[in-house]
């Protein structure tokens, strides 16, 4: 092969990458349609070189979305003048100068750990104020590790449920970990509920970034109303009305709110808070739908209401309360 032919190949490599970027730019447009997709797929099918070039530029673009989670609100939308090139950094998370010293600061903190463990027992609730102005409310039967210092804001939920109100701090994203999952936030309100193999994250305000499992650079951006349920390797994203998410937070006032909730689900919910465990005996009873609000720690009140409303049989044995029809 002659030298000029090899140079030609190097040029082809660039042409290919530019083509891939052009496709990605086209796909990013609002008028992207099924016919465009068919064209893109035809191009990709022409050769693995096309595939690789496209995967590469697409992967980088997907990764860049993560920066949105640590974005500051855009200050005014009226600026029509030339955008100053350095300003974007100020509107983002960690400034570079700060990163350089972060390593040094971390060494100092090894000697003086700022980590603490906060727990709640069955039926207990706790509110923790952190030094940075953030607040975390722990629901029943929860274990949470918190590590907040001037240099970092970390929390890890071992089990249970917590509502996070994170103070805005662009220079220190707050990272909540739950098993293999990571949630990165700048300043926002959200809940995390971890139970065995299942994790639920619901966002009320702001934006958060969720890294599911060990999926490298892949993750999900959540906006208010989003709820993500992760079980094992599976991840489902749902949209919930603000009212539903607020109802689910009623535990903060010690109240459980049910809206057409099955008796089985309601019983499971009560069992999270109380030593006395509700057992639903049969599926006919389990499928009964409940509307109402109850004190989370008053099983007796719930049992009485169910008995009067549905005519259920109630049988106590030990710390179990068996409901049947």
């Amino acid at each position, binding site marked *: 092969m002659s030298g000029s*032919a*090899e140079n030609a190949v190097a040029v082809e490599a660039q042409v290919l990458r530019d083509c891939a970027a052009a496709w990605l730019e086209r796909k990013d447009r609002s008028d992207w349609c099924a016919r465009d997709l068919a064209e893109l797929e035809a191009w990709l099918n022409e050769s693995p070189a096309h595939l690789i070039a496209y995967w590469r530029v697409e992967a*980088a673009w997907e990764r860049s979305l993560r920066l*949105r989670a640590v974005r500051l609100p855009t200050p005014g939308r009226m600026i029509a003048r030339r955008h100053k090139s350095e300003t*974007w950094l100020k509107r983002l998370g960690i400034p570079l100068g700060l990163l350089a010293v972060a390593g040094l600061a971390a060494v100092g903190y090894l000697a003086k750990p700022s980590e603490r463990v906060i727990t709640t027992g069955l039926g207990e609730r706790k509110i923790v104020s952190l030094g940075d102005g953030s607040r975390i409310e722990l629901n029943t039967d929860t274990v949470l590790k918190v590590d907040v210092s001037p240099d970092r804001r970390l929390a890890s939920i071992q089990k249970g449920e917590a509502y996070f109100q994170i103070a805005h701090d662009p220079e220190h994203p707050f990272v909540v970990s739950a098993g293999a999952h990571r949630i990165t936030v700048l300043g926002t309100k959200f809940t995390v509920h971890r139970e065995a193999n299942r994790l639920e994250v619901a966002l009320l305000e702001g934006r958060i970034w969720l890294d599911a499992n060990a999926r490298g650079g892949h993750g999900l951006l959540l906006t208010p109303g989003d709820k993500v349920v992760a079980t094992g390797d599976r991840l489902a994203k749902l949209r919930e009305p603000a009212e539903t998410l607020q109802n689910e937070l009623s535990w903060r006032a010690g109240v459980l709110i049910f809206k057409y909730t099955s008796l089985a689900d309601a019983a499971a919910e009560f069992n999270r808070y109380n030593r006395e465990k509700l057992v639903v005996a049969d599926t006919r009873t389990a499928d009964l739908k409940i509307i109402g609000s109850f004190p989370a720690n008053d099983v007796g009140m719930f049992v009485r209401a169910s008995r009067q409303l549905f005519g259920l049989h109630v049988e106590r044995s030990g710390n179990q309360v068996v409901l049947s029809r």
Partner: protein
Amino acid sequence: MNPPTVGTWWVMSDASETSRDGADRPRMGAGMDLQTLKDWFQREVLPLEAILMTYLRQNWRDQSNIEDLLHDVYLQVFHGALERLPENPKAFVFTTARNLLISRVRRHNIVPIETVADLDALGAAIDTPDQERSTIAREELRRLQIAMDRLPAKYRDVVVMRRIDDLSRAEIAVRLGLSEETITTYLRRGMSALADMLYAGQSRHTEGEP
């Protein structure tokens, strides 16, 4: 060998270098779907690009066709992984690179083979254990910010407005006082430069381009 053209680029390697057997379409191994291969390639292979390019540069005299070599490595990794995803992606990628260099050396007869045989020396660098997961999220943010920071300013502005501020092309055009066609061009170049910055650690695009 015929001069390659776009679209036939991937068949330019000769038979001794690839496991392909003359078929002009990729063969899918049993149970291997393209999505799985794509996830694997984006997650495991692309992040090795910077260190792979360093390896190629150190072991190949003609620096003008490093990109070409890189692409051939990617293609062979692609074909190799079609059969079955390798258990150790790093070892697989670098072994592929070394074999490619050796076969090139034999064909060109210009570089002593010893120079490409020191993969073991590189082994230590390849097998550095992955960072603890808790630091990955912040590390990734830092890497993204550095990559973004190094983009040529005019491309970066457009990328930031589109990707981070979530503005439409029309809004960006108004803000920057440029035409939408220019925004489109900048966005393409910015996307391309961001990929180069994140994976190769450098950008081919410079400020002075039209």
